[in-house]
C-alpha cells in the first residue's frame, strides 16, 4: 500500500463514534483517545463521543492532574466545540452508579439512558474504542 491512500470519493463523511469507558490519568487511554478525536474532526467527519462506565469520570470538573505531575487535559473537552465536535453523550446510569451529576461535568453534554446509548452506537459507521 502506498503512502497516500486514494480517497475515492472526496467528501466522504462517516459517523465516527469514540467510546470512552475508562477513567482518566490511571491509564493513557482517555488522553490518547482524545487526540484521535481532534484529528477526526479535522477530517470533517461526523464525530460523536460516548462516555459510559468509568469514562464519565473523564468529564469531571475540578480535575488537577498537575497534582500527580501529569497532563491536565480535561479542559480540552471544552475546546471541542471549536472543532465542531458537539455530540457528547453521557450515560445516565453510569453517572448515577458513580454518584456523579450532570452539573458536575466540565462541559455541556447530552445525558442519555443505556438503551438510547446502545441505539446511538448502532447508528455509527466506525466505532473506536480504546
Amino acid at each position, binding site marked *: 500500500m502506498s503512502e497516500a491512500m486514494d480517497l475515492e470519493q472526496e467528501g466522504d463523511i462517516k459517523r465516527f463514534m469514540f467510546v470512552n*469507558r475508562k477513567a482518566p490519568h490511571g491509564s493513557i487511554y482517555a488522553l490518547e483517545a482524545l487526540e484521535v478525536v481532534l484529528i477526526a474532526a479535522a477530517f470533517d467527519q461526523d464525530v460523536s463521543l460516548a462516555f459510559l*462506565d468509568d469514562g464519565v469520570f473523564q468529564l469531571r470538573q475540578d480535575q488537577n492532574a498537575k497534582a500527580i505531575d501529569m497532563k491536565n487535559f480535561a479542559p480540552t473537552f471544552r475546546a471541542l466545540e471549536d472543532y465542531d465536535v458537539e455530540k457528547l453523550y453521557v450515560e445516565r446510569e453510569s453517572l448515577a452508579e458513580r454518584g456523579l451529576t450532570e452539573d458536575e461535568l466540565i462541559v455541556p453534554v447530552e445525558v442519555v439512558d*443505556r438503551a438510547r446509548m446502545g441505539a446511538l*452506537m*448502532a447508528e455509527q459507521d466506525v*466505532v473506536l*474504542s480504546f
Partner: protein
Amino acid sequence: MLHTVNKSPWQTPNLDACLAHLGNERLLLIEDGVYAAVARSDAAGKLEAPARDGRVYALGPDLEARGIDTAQLAEGIEVVDYSGFVQLVAEHGPHQAWL
C-alpha cells in the same frame, strides 16, 4: 454491529457492559472472553437470550488454546474460526470492541 469481548467476565465488567448495549446485534467472544461461554459458569446465563437468537459466537482457536471443549459450551453459542470472525465483521459490521 458485531461486538467483541476479549476479557473474562470475572476479570472485568466488559461482558456486562456489552450485553447492556447489545440490542439485537451480535457478540463474538474472543481471547479470554471465551471463558464466559462455558455452560456451567455463572456467566453463561447472561448469554442465554442472545444465544437463543443465534447471536452469540465464540472463537474456536481461543477455546482450544484454553482447553475448552465445544461440548462444554452453553446452548446456542456458535463456534467460528478466524475466517468466521472475518465473515461476521464483513456481514454484520461495523465492529465494536469492548476493551
